[in-house]
Every structure is written in C-alpha cells, then in structure tokens.
C-alpha cells in the first residue's frame, strides 16, 4: 500500500494485523473507556514498536502484547479517574437505574469489572476472557500461581456479588 511512511516497523505492523482485535478487547475489559480504546490500542502498538528489539520470544507475541497492554490500560484508568464521571459513558447514577436495561451484556460485564479490585480484574480478564493459562497469567502479573488463583476466586466472588446486587441471577 503506497502511503506515508509507517509509524511502526513491518514486524509491528504484522503484530497489529494478527493481534489488534485481541488487544482492543483486552484493553476494553481492563477498563479503558470505549471512546479511548482506539487511542489506547494505538499506544500499545507504538510501545510495542519501541520495545520490539528487547523482545526475545520468551513468551508468545500475543502474551507479550498483553504485558504492554496491562501497563497502558493502567495509565488510561488513572487518567479516567481524573476525569469527572459525567464524561463517562459507563457512569450510572441512581436516577439512571433503568440504564441497566439498556446496556448490552458486554457493557454489563465491564460495568461489574469496574467495581472489583484492579489486581483481581487483571487476573480475571487474562484467564477467563483471554483464556491464558494460569502460569502465564502469573508470569505476566509477576505474582505466584497460587496468588493468581486466589485472586481469580476472589474476582469471581466479587463479580457475582456485584451482579447480584444489580439483579442479575447468580
């Protein structure tokens, strides 16, 4: 495709082609807001481009990208906390209780994930949604496998509680 010079190298371009959808979804469930997702996704691949020389293939490329995404998502979540909730398309006030009816199930899960701890969320999203084996989850999060399992259990419990409070059957 004859275009302006790419901002990333051909290797990163291939990574983008192969894993952009997964990165997008991962960032979404990690708590990057819908309207920030494109920017955050772009950031992941810019970082990947910069860090590619350090990549030794000790993990699958997808898992490596998830490692970058975890850090990127964290900064976007911090940024989000600085923005007033009114800006947040997922924010729900008590007066908007009927909003729940409107929200589709993807957003319902994001909404619930917003209400559990960050460390539990990371384990849950990596293992349950992205289906990474627990050993890899633990390696990515630099914690022990037992800790990861324990966080996963706590995450499930917390999510079920949050959803139950919203009237979702357990």
């Amino acid at each position, binding site marked *: *495709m004859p*275009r*302006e*010079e*790419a*901002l*990333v190298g051909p290797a*990163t*371009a291939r990574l*983008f*082609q192969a894993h*952009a*959808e997964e990165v*997008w*979804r991962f960032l*979404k*469930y990690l708590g990057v807001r819908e*309207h920030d*997702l*494109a*920017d955050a*996704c*772009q950031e992941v*691949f*810019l970082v990947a481009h910069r860090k590619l020389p350090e990549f030794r293939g000790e993990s699958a490329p997808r898992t490596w990208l998830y490692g970058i995404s975890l850090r990127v998502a964290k900064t976007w979540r911090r940024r989000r906390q600085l923005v007033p909730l009114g*800006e947040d*398309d997922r924010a729900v006030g008590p007066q*908007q209780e009927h*909003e729940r*009816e*409107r929200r*589709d*199930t*993807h957003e*319902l*899960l994001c909404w*619930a994930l917003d209400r559990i701890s960050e460390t539990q969320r990371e384990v849950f999203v990596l293992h*349950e*949604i992205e*289906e990474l084996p627990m050993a890899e989850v633990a390696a990515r999060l630099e914690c022990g496998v037992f800790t990861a399992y324990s966080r996963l259990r706590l995450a*499930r419990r917390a*999510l*079920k509680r949050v*959803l139950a409070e*919203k*009237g*979702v*059957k*357990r």
Partner: protein
Amino acid sequence: MTHPDLDQLVLLARRDRPALGVLAAVARSLRVPFAAAPIAAIVTPSTAAASLVAKAGLSRLALLGWGAGSTVAVSGVVLAVVFSRPVAPPASPVRAPVLQPVRAPVLPQVAEPAPAPEVAASPAASPARPAKETPATWDEPQLIERARKALAAEPRRALSLTQEHQRRFPAGALGVERDVIALEALARTGQAAEAKRRALAFQAKYPKSIHLPRVNALLARLGSE
C-alpha cells in the same frame, strides 16, 4: 429482562469485537495496512452463542451481528473506502490525539421522538426532525454502528439513524447492513407489516447475503406472532 449469569457474560465477552472501522482507523493513524480477520478465522456465530443471546432476550443482531459476520461481509468494502479517501480533517482539536478521526462524541442520553410510521415506510423522506445526535462528523461505519447499538433498547432511535444513513450515504458501502437494522427496528417498533414487506424484499434482492439467516429468522418470528 433477564441477564445472563457471569459465565455467560464471559462467553459473550470472549467474542466481543471492535465496531466496524475502529481498527482500520487505528491502522490508518499508525500508517500500517490492515484487513479484518479472514473469513476462516471468524466463522458464523456459534449456535452456543446464539442460544445464549436468545436466552438473555437480546437482539441477535446486536451481539452477534457485526462482531462476526458483517465484519467479514463488509470490511473489505469499508477498508477500501477508509483507505482510498483522504484522512478526514479533525472535527475539533480536543486534546489533539493522533487518532482524532475515530473519536465520536459521547452520546447525550435523550429520548428520540418516534418517527411517524409513514416516514419509516419511506426511508427516502428524512424525518421531520433530523437526529441532532448524529453530527456530520460521524462517518458511515460509525453511523451504522450507533444504529446497531441502539437496536436493542431504542429501536426508534435505531430506525431514525438508519434513515439518517439512507439520507447521507444513499450509495454507501453499508447499505445492506442498514437495511437489516432497519427491518429489525421496524419489527421492534410494532411495524410488523412493514418489517415483513421489507424482509421479503431483502430476501429477493440479496439471496446470497451473509445476513440472510437473520432476516429469515426475523420473518419466522414475525410469522409466528
């Protein structure tokens, strides 16, 4: 409305995919080529997912639709459109992110007045009050995506967005998608006869469409009501 439980939510999340054109726009700003996953990689939505969605009382179109099938069906066209036209000028210089064109304004949560049935029946006529929540900055995929998202909870709004699409992109690349959304929306706003008429017309016009199963299902549903 009953919601699916946690495990069901997870299954649906695993199939979650970006809206049309989102990644193409990211690719554009990174200046790398991008094509949505090939057909082999995203087959038609699994029956498991379909039954989950049916159980949850949600629109098949809303959850299974463009994430899987239509990405395949239209991405080629969309990408061709996206890549062949010059990058849209930034609508407003907010925060000056590299990705300005992707950014859609946050939707104000206001109820849309119902378009009159006769208006709905003739999409060429624009609604009396054009949807002011659809600024000219929305490109074609965004417009269709908004309409698709509105289907489940705000079918009237979905309908008026399809009319907006018809008005602004009469020869757009997503005309088929628009038609499918429109007939779903008609069915959901109690205009069964019109929905049925258009569904039959759709069958005749697009006998090989990837959306045909959906349209057939809609017809079956309308027939049994």
